[in-house]
């Protein structure tokens, strides 16, 4: 059993941490409270504040690092102020200040870490650099109560199937080219649909109205998958559709109706999500687990959750997913994972707070678990 209280302040029965996240287009700040002792169903983490501001690019465009960083700089101090106010916590009562050290986009990461460094010196608090993916995983475990699940991490920049073994979150399968969220975002751009609230959400709404399944490439390679070829193919179909082509493949083979944009969204989701569920099931079979936890922005998609739920049910297992407060990037997960690390002795010196765009999930030594 790991001693989670070796670094507790004498006489203080709890810990408080503030977390700051800005690795992509969401800026989030959260405040979390842990009581002494290991976390379990009777000793849950308490969320005292969780605020967020999202930068949305205009329709047809992706968010650029420079513009995103500017957004974060404009909002970071105000968001910290708001989070502190929401939580009712005094700065002097905080134990540590946690920030996302990577992976993510360079400029946005840097725009947030500068604020974290300044505040940590002003408030005389230790800094804890957090791996963004670990943040998602630990928050997902805490919220859902899943103890040792296979984790499907699906977002704009990541597509990974992860399982814990020997104090590391190991990557069993991942995309060989682009991430699922990126694939959906780029298709949304092809269709010129809005980025607000998120491109993936808008595709999900269109997909609900689709009824014809268009045949797309299906590219699973073991526990890995590849998506760039599928995007290229479906992009091509969309262009042909918009330019009014009358080719045979733009009509459904059964009822002869013309394929619609909704059908394309539907088919893309069905195809990509089947691939995701398949590789997740492979990983579950491989490590002999029947729990699956979905984290990351794409994890909010209800069709993905439904498909995953059917699969898990067939394996006599269960699916754990969170709502948009937690599966979309947020500050609370950084506070939570950072606090877990702080409680077993992690902390970063100022010169050791440089952000890393390619910080891999399996680099982190998970000292706070020993199962």
């Amino acid at each position, binding site marked *: 059993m790991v001693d989670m209280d070796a670094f507790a302040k004498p006489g203080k029965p709890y810990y408080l941490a503030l977390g700051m996240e800005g690795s992509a287009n969401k800026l989030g700040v959260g405040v979390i409270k842990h009581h002494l002792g290991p976390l379990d169903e009777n000793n849950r983490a308490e969320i005292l504040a969780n605020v967020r501001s999202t930068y949305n690019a205009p329709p047809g465009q992706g968010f650029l690092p420079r513009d995103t960083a500017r957004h974060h700089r404009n909002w970071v101090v105000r968001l910290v102020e708001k989070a502190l106010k929401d939580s009712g916590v005094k700065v002097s009562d905080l134990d540590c200040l946690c920030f996302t050290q990577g992976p993510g986009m360079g400029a946005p990461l840097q725009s947030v870490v500068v604020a974290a460094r300044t505040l940590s*010196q002003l408030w005389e608090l230790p800094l804890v650099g957090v791996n963004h993916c670990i943040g998602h995983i630990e928050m997902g475990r805490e919220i859902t109560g899943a103890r040792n699940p296979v984790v499907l991490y699906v977002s704009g920049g990541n597509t990974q199937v992860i399982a814990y073994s020997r104090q590391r979150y190991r990557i069993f399968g991942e995309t060989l080219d682009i991430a699922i969220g990126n694939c959906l975002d780029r298709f949304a751009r092809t269709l010129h649909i809005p980025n607000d609230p998120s491109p993936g959400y808008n595709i999900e709404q269109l997909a609900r109205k689709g009824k014809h399944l268009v045949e797309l490439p299906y590219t699973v390679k073991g526990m890995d998958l590849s998506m760039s070829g599928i995007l290229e193919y479906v992009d091509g179909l969309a262009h042909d559709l918009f330019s009014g082509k009358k080719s045979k493949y733009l009509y459904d083979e059964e009822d002869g109706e013309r394929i619609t944009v909704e059908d394309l969204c539907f088919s893309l989701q069905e195809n990509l999500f089947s691939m995701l569920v398949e590789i997740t099931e492979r990983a579950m079979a491989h490590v002999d687990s029947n729990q699956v936890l979905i984290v990351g922005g794409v994890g909010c998609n209800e069709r993905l959750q439904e498909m995953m739920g059917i699969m898990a049910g067939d394996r006599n297992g269960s699916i754990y997913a969170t709502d948009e407060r937690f599966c979309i990037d947020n500050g609370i997960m950084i506070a939570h994972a950072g606090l877990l690390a702080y409680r077993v002795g992690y902390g970063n010196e100022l010169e050791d707070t440089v952000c890393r765009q390619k910080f891999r999930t399996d680099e982190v030594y998970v000292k706070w678990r020993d199962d």
Partner: protein
Amino acid sequence: MSTVVSTATSSATPTPLTHTLEFKIPFENEKQSIIAKNSLSPDPLLKPDELKVSFSNDGNVLKITFRGTSDRMIRVAANNIMDNLKTVLECFEVFD
């Protein structure tokens, strides 16, 4: 916000870092000046062969010196530092 003294000169020294720029930023007190230095200085430069940035504190003044192979190199780095400096100053304004 702060006084900025800039001198871009082409000197005849053998070093290829021919262009220089210097910021002198006065803060309310020495503590703030040191915090600003510590917050801005850890991040490594993209092309350390073509640009060097040094930070030093003199009382309440933070001195940042850029030396680079071209004015463009310096401009990019200086802009980035200025952007980050705004965040640092806002932290002071609200929380100090």
